[in-house]
């Protein structure tokens, strides 16, 4: 898509956005709430019309949302969009049917999709009996029966257990190996870090920065995180910690203090001795930067603070 503008009322939701997704990639789309991620997805799937600019889908730029093109698109919605009255299998049959699959082919694809997300044993159960993770997996399976070329996943892992999440991430990787292109939005940086081949960061309806995970981390490389578990956080000299040279951010949560500091400045020692003066240290751990820190460094705000709606 190129130079896309979209307004809601007088508010500009997308402001001359350019984005290209190439075949076989997993693109991670990051951005705080209200950055325009959802609008971006809605425009690129033709759910809402755009005001300016062009959208090119599978090489077709005028009227890209033909039925033939839509057959190659898949969407995993943020909400769990399955029918509660129908069993897992019937849900899949329904969505497969909408995409024009029939007879034995549909049967096969449904079985395949069920097996793919690991729900084959639960084919004849209704989703109301499922756990959160299983519902999510079913939600994903519903977008797979027609084997989309481009799969858009809008926060597919909100609110589920780690096991299901790993399962989902594995499936996403597997899909990519099978040749599916994937656009993945999420609030969880570690997910993007794990699977995305390229990351795009959005803010206020504009693209801020793009590149591979490594490139982005490289740009702020020389930073580290120091987690210290202490006996009593109320005694902590937060002000003094902040005034140590090279310390960029101090965060206290529970009994854990997190300090973001310049790498190689020998600060670990300094911070530790300062903390020790005031309270007992129970444990310490240092961490190299991840995408979360990229975002924090670039904008000074946390990516995930609101959670929920994107």
């Amino acid at each position: 898509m190129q130079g896309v503008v979209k307004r809601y009322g007088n508010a500009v939701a997308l402001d001359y956005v350019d984005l290209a997704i190439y075949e076989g990639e997993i693109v991670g789309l990051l951005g705080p709430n209200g950055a325009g991620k959802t609008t971006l997805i809605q425009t690129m799937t033709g759910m809402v019309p755009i005001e300016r600019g062009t959208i090119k889908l599978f090489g077709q730029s005028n009227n890209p949302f033909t039925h033939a093109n839509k057959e190659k698109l898949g969407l995993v919605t943020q909400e769990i969009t399955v029918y509660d009255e129908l069993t897992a299998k019937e849900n899949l049959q329904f969505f497969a049917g909408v995409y024009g699959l029939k007879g034995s082919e549909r049967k096969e694809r449904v079985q395949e999709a069920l097996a793919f997300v690991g729900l084959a044993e639960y084919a004849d159960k209704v989703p109301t009996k499922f756990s959160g993770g299983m519902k999510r997996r079913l939600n994903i399976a519903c977008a797979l029966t027609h084997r989309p070329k481009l799969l858009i996943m809008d926060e597919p892992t909100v609110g589920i257990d780690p096991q299901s999440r790993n399962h989902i991430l594995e499936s996403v990787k597997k899909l990519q190996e099978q040749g599916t292109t994937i656009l993945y939005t999420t609030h969880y940086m570690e997910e993007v870090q794990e699977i995305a081949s390229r990351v795009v960061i959005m803010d206020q309806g504009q693209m801020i920065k793009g590149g591979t995970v490594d490139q982005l981390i490289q740009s702020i490389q020389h930073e580290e995180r120091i987690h210290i578990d202490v006996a009593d956080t109320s005694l902590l000299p937060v002000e003094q910690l902040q005034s140590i040279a090279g310390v960029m951010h101090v965060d206290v949560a529970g009994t854990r203090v997190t300090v973001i500091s310049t790498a190689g400045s020998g600060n670990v020692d300094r911070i530790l001795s300062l903390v020790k003066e005031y309270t007992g240290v129970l444990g310490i751990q240092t961490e190299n930067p991840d995408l979360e820190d990229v975002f924090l460094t670039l904008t000074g705000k946390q990516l995930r603070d609101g959670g929920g709606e994107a």
Partner: protein
Amino acid sequence: MKAAMEPQLYVHTWRFLMVGVLCHLWVFGQDLTNVWILILLLLALACLRWRFALPLWTVVIDVCLCLVYAPYTTIGYYGLALPVFELAVRGRVLIAVLPFAILFLYEATPGLLFLFLLQALFVGLFAWAALGNQHSYKLEVDKQRKARYELERVKLELLEASESASQQAELMERYRIARQLHDHLGHDLTGASLALQAYVHMQEPEEARELLEEVQKRLERSTVNLRETVHNLTPVARIGVESLENVAQQFQYAAIRFHRSGDMLLVSAYQWTLLEACLKEALTNVARHSNATQVRVELQVTASIVRLLIHDNGTMTQPSLAGSGLRSLQMRARAMGGSFSISRDDGYLLVCVLPLSKEGAG
């Protein structure tokens, strides 16, 4: 609400309002039940226009319906307000006036009907103008934003060019210093050094004393020369972190805490300019718009980046987006491969990060 200002909303509301007026006429008139069909049909058309952009010729249907019913009921005449309005909304004033001719066929007091059609015409024209305005306004805004982005792109290239120019200048300057040192000091110091070597092997005390004097003279001259060269090279203006500190110190509107860390010499001159501009802009904003009492300024230099953070405790949040000053700073920061962000969630927070690179441009 912003939505309340959408002219399209008023157009839809007016249509349904007019159908409401027709209903009112029907309820309090003496018409037969059959006439109710006319109102329903007109309502259906209004609904269709609400959902879809019907082509203009569809008003012919409205007109025909009204004319068919006109001999039996006055609602047929009043219903003409709808097509009149549709035509006016599309700017076809002359055609919109045509239905007024129907007044001559109308036996009862035509005054009220005339006024009714007239208001439809005027409301329609007004909506037409408003819609047109809105459209051209949007077009203009988009065009301007686009132009600005183009401009920014050009600026970006210019900035990159100026960055490399400044690096060139730096190299030239180094070369000049080297030559000056070589020309003024090198000669005398080499001479002194040679003389001292000769002095070691000297037998005659008289000659040796002369030689020593010579060496002393040369060294004195070198010292003077060195002092002069250095004096000539030292800039009068404050540079680097000093100038930043200076800016901070002269700020009087709020208590300011300046805190720096790292090796300031790693930062290039052109980056100092930007950092200074950032600080000035932020402090100006504090002074002008904010009710902050405390400002925290942090400057951190690491091996690879320099990060400037300005944070105040003001509570006045301005909804306006990045102004032109901030935007240009953002562009310049990006041009240097860095980033620039502002947030107003908790006081005013400005973060500018620039990469440092030892070799060439980042």
